[in-house]
């Protein structure tokens, strides 16, 4: 190892969020990821915006990620639909996203899932 420069890889929040979103969307029963408030409201009247909301890490497509040291916390907000069990969809997203993001980045990943809406139309 001597003689080689020390390489430290830092994976940013946006990278984690994007990878998480990519895998979350592929879980059966996930119809859509719910874009974070600030994102969804772009282009809407100012009065609609809530300036007090979290302005921390960049949200990507309904996924919010924060990397701290060797671990990451990911929050996935999703829409599912009738025909799937919310509990099972949530668990599958947690499993898939934690495994895939972990494998890709080497981080310890905790995945929070919020099922925001269940589509009822068939």
């Amino acid at each position, binding site marked *: 190892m001597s003689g080689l420069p020390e390489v430290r890889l830092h994976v940013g929040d946006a990278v984690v969020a994007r990878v998480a979103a990519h895998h979350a969307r592929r879980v059966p029963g996930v119809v859509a990821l*719910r*874009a974070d*408030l600030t994102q*969804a*409201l772009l282009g*809407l*009247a100012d009065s*609609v915006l809530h300036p007090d909301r979290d302005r921390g890490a960049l949200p990507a497509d309904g996924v919010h990620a924060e990397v701290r040291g060797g671990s990451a916390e990911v929050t996935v*907000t999703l829409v599912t639909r*009738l025909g*799937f*069990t*919310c*509990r*099972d969809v*949530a*668990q599958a997203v*947690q*499993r898939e996203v*934690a495994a895939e993001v972990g494998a890709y980045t080497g981080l310890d990943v*905790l*995945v*929070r*899932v*919020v*099922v*925001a*809406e*269940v589509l*009822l139309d068939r």
Partner: protein
Amino acid sequence: MALTPDPDGRLACGRDAAAVWDRAVAGEPADAHERGCPHCTAAAADARGLGALVQRLAQEDPEPPPSVLDRVMVAVRTELRPHDVLTLPSPHGPARLSRAAAAAVLRHTVDAMAGVRARSCRIEQADDTRSGDPGHAVDVRITVTARFGVDLASVTARVRQMVAAAGEQALGVPVRRVDIEVVDVFGDHW
């Protein structure tokens, strides 16, 4: 004729100006006082003079472009209280379900049944009393309206069954208790 109504809307003769005006617009004949009263006559003449134009204005029917409600609904959906959630059982970390979304699923289940419609649907998730851990079982309080003539006892029994089943199957939370109240009846032939 200079009309100087007082703030209460009385004509100088003491008559209620709005009433005189409304009657003139409606084409009702003037009574004895109104025929002889210059204030009433002037008000009625103004009313009739303006009437046709006002009617045309009222008939113009500007409609809002669909984009207005679309924008509102985007904002409404993003504003949906994300903190108001139920906890889903999961060994993999925190999993939550919007309480409003869960209620919509249960109401939908009821709506799909013949002769009954869901109105209020409240879902409470009690902590496990023995362990103190957050439990997952829910208590559901639902109010329904029923079609006039349906057998209330059997329909509420079915509602209870279907709501419990939907809780387990669609939401994935055990349903501990379902309270049903029939709050109104509806029908096609009243």
